[in-house]
């Protein structure tokens, strides 16, 4: 089962890198499930929110996907990022933690779904420059396409893409500081 998971995820990520948005979406969705299960398993006391870790890991995967070699296995890459970010999150909360590099246990973890909580929609967007914030919100929260967003704000599609990318990078940086 793990082998199948690995193959499917690697295929999805390869297609995503070639530019397929749907495959990328599917990849991130499945990875979110795995990372959520991993984070919930490792966070035994409070202080660190598992869903924050999931989002931070997804952003890191997104911004660092060029560090994956298309012929390399994808799950060890994903879990190495997840482990790094989880340790970072614990450290920011002032906890000392040791997390084993236990790939076997991790890869057999069942994916888990996000529990719907009252997450503050604005929180991640707060620190962004105004243009970035409107573009990221239009695409993520309102679910508009890049074309629709460009029309709505009377921007070029290129400008929308740039604002979106910079906005995501800024959110990732904010996670690292909180």
């Amino acid at each position, binding site marked *: 089962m793990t082998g199948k998971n690995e193959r499917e995820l690697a295929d999805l990520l390869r297609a*995503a*890198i070639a*530019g*397929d*948005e*749907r495959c*990328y*979406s599917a990849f*991130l*969705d499945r990875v*979110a499930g795995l990372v959520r299960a991993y984070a919930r398993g490792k966070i035994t006391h409070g202080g660190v929110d598992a*869903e924050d870790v*999931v*989002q931070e890991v*997804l*952003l*890191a995967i*997104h*911004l*660092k*996907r*060029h*560090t*994956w*070699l298309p012929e*390399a*296995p994808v799950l*060890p*890459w*994903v*879990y*190495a*990022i997840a*482990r*790094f970010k989880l340790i970072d999150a614990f450290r920011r909360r002032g906890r000392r933690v040791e997390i084993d*590099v236990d790939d076997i246990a991790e890869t057999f973890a069942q994916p888990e779904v*996000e529990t*719907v909580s009252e*997450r503050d*929609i604005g*929180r*991640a*967007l707060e620190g962004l420059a105004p243009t970035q914030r409107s573009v*990221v919100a239009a*695409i*993520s*929260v309102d*679910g508009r*396409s*890049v074309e629709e967003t460009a029309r709505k704000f009377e921007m070029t599609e290129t400008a929308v*893409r740039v604002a*979106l*990318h910079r*906005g*995501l990078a800024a959110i990732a940086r904010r996670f*690292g500081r909180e």
Partner: protein
Amino acid sequence: MNTQDLIRAMAADTRRQALPLGTAWRVAMGLALVLAGAVFALALGPRPDALASLETARFVFKFVVTLALAASAFVLLRRLVRPGEAARAPLGWLLTGPLLLIAAVGLELLAVPSSDWAERLIGVNARVCLTFIPLIGAAPLVVFLAVLRHGAPTRPALAGAVAGLLAGGMAGAFYAAHCPDDSPLFVATWYSLAIAGLAVAGAVLAPRLARW
């Protein structure tokens, strides 16, 4: 923003691709060589008998050992910027340079009477060595730290230290063409100290500069 919203935003950003790491490394190595070479040429330049000295084993060995260190550090560093590969990076390769150096020191101790050991170890140029290896290696170290920042080192301090060894090995090879001290005893003492300084600088700077 919930996780599904975030995934939607990232999917819309699919087409934007970062510079591949292979390209980043090629650019970085080229840039590091040019910068190190420029500092070397402006500040020191090769010693007058550098070409003729290529026939002496001790002179040539200085390049062998520094380049062996740089090569092993480079191979390792390429892995340390990729998550998932960093954990099983073959650190043992780094021993190539030090082991060569230990062997050369052994041969030197056999070849040279013990009354000359101290003189050869101290040499004439220790201060220049301690000054210029870090100076020549500083710009390459900055370049390599920029690659670490572009990559995703999960062991940033280690990656920074190895970046320092790579910069130091490179700087040592340039500096070797200038330095009149060829004894492995000198190299083992002063080159090692200077290169270790760059490694420490890398280990301290990388976790700060290469945050991701």
